């Protein structure tokens, strides 16, 4: 964190952010019978040049959270502020200006690029929507610069997406996200569609960009090892709620929430010598439906430590003075480090 972080307003802040999707029944007269509580009261802040990782399994609401943070979807309750401004209260030109500061890299480089546009057109398209960003005469040069920044050959600007490999396509997606000079890049599973040997290239590129351009990043992934590699701070999500946040070291070496520890125990490590799967911490059962989450602590149905107290909902709070809040009535002892870390 930067020294000025305490004084400057955060780049991105979400407060009690909530998104419920209604469940309706009836054909002619639809009526609401429930709601999928995809995101349910999430607080988070991202400071300048900081990287926040959001980890969770499928169905935990991490992609819904991404579209709320990007102001692509209206929250049911709660607020998002970007540089202190609320995107949902703005419209027209003001909203467009605000959007320039936050850009997104999508998961699938095969479906997120228009197959009928050339690489140059794809990377230059943001300038058509935000003509004030770069004067027309400079756009060709800027596109070439962007391609070079992400490690692509500017002479390939007239090629179509199918002429690029998966890794190169993801680089195009990153170049497009950088076109407007954002301060924050939101990456939703940016490497999970790529082959192992190519993932590392894209991860290294993201890391270089973040450092060279002093970009803040929100990095959403199901893969703990990938998140570990890129992020300063990490938030763990379960069923629409954040259950723990902390620095990379705090989360990986001294997790406080039983869910975080279970996730770490389940993640396979590429070392046959370490093959003693941490059976004691493996979870039973599946993720409950977000349409009818358990009362109280949402993790209690799968938690090995659940007790009566867990029927009341725990708040995300800090103990022991460390900046490492967790939503658990019985947080794990942080004095014992995980053995395989």
């Amino acid at each position, binding site marked *: 964190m930067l020294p000025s972080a305490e004084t400057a307003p955060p780049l991105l802040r979400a407060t009690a952010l909530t998104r419920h999707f209604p469940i309706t029944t009836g054909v002619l007269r639809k009526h609401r019978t429930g709601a999928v509580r995809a995101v349910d009261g999430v607080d988070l802040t991202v400071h300048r040049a900081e990287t926040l990782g959001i980890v969770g399994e499928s169905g935990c609401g991490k992609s819904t959270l991404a579209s709320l943070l990007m102001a692509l979807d209206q929250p049911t309750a709660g607020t998002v502020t970007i540089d202190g401004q609320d995107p949902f209260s703005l419209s027209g030109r003001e909203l467009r200006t605000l959007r320039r500061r936050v850009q997104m890299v999508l998961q699938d480089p095969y479906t997120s690029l228009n197959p009928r546009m050339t690489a140059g057109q794809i990377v230059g398209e943001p300038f058509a929507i935000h003509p004030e960003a770069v004067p027309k005469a400079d756009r060709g040069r800027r596109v070439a610069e962007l391609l070079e920044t992400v490690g692509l050959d500017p002479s390939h600007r007239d090629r179509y997406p199918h002429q690029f490999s998966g890794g190169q396509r993801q680089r195009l997606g990153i170049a497009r996200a950088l076109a407007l000079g954002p301060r924050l890049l939101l990456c939703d599973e940016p490497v999970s569609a790529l082959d192992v040997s190519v993932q590392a290239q894209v991860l*290294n590129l993201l890391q270089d960009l973040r450092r060279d351009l002093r970009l803040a990043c929100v990095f959403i992934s199901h893969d703990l090892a990938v998140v570990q590699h890129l992020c300063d701070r990490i938030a763990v999500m379960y069923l629409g709620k954040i259950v723990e946040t902390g620095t990379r070291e705090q989360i990986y070496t001294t997790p406080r929430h039983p869910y975080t520890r279970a996730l770490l125990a389940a993640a*396979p490590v590429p070392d046959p010598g370490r093959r003693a799967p941490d059976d004691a911490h493996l979870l039973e059962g599946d993720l409950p439906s977000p349409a009818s989450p358990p009362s109280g602590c949402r993790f209690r149905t799968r938690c090995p430590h659940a007790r009566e107290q867990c029927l009341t909902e725990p708040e995300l709070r800090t103990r022991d003075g460390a900046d490492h809040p967790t939503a658990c009535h019985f947080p794990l002892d942080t004095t014992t480090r995980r053995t395989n870390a």
Partner: protein
Amino acid sequence: MSPDAHPLLEVEDLCVEFRTRRGTIRAVNGLSYALHEGETLALLGESGSGKSVAAQAVMGLLDTPPAHITRGAVRLRGDDLLAMSPEGHRQVRGTRLSMIFQDALTALNPVLSVGDQLAEMYRVHQGTGRKAAFARAVALMDRVRIPAAARRVHDYPHQFSGGMRQRVMIAMALALDPEVVIADEPTTALDVTVQAQIMRLLKQLQGETRMGLLLITHDLGVVAEAADRITVMYAGRTVESASAEDLYARPGHPYTRGLLDSVPRLDRLGKSLVPITGAPPLPSSVPAGCAFHPRCPRAEPRCGSEAPPFRTLSPAGHRSACHFAEEVHHAPVG
């Protein structure tokens, strides 16, 4: 002949081509491996490496045309599967050899209850009566630890969660006590916590039945936790094969080494990654010589013209197809 003389499943110099109007694609080019009883062998490879095609060839699931098995042998306890009639192969499939697919939602029939589909295995292959077959289906679901099996046997695939659906797939594969189970990316579609449950289940079942498990995957972590031996494929060819410990500790091929250096790991916080440059070749344009040479940091001119032989590096059976295999094998792992 002692039972050990025949491995359970032996694949020798397997070549599979797809003949299309736009040319011939060689998807598998000289794959060999042997799987023993109670053993887990991993076929490790990225997309396009030919690992799934190789499995389908063994299962006899490839359509000819366009696929043609042009060379090689597949032997199940000495019985040549490729020489069998389609009917003979169908008999073997399910009873002696079975497969777990990646995506249980598309592999299961959506309009039949799970019980009907499991019972069908007994009705078709063993002529079991309807009631008895259903009872065995329930027992099977119990065996793969599906809770409340007697009630859930009437449910349809969409009513199960991803992990439970994968258990149904496993139940179906194990129904007739096969000698060999081929699992093609069995946990790729699942979350990590569920993946851990499924891998643990497979291991427990293997302990009960002594089945040979061929695990096809791209995930270096899953392989490290599950496999006894590993065969690494690249562009349709075998590039390395060794015991799991040996392969991770002393890789003998630059590709394997590159893979190990490029995965982010939970046990190495913040360590920088060394990626492999470039991208895997398309099966339609595999480079001449060593297929990996355009991406290889160690490549010399001869790598572009001379295909390296698959050589033995150690008495323990560590083999590698690289001109500089010894040098790579003995270099320290970073």
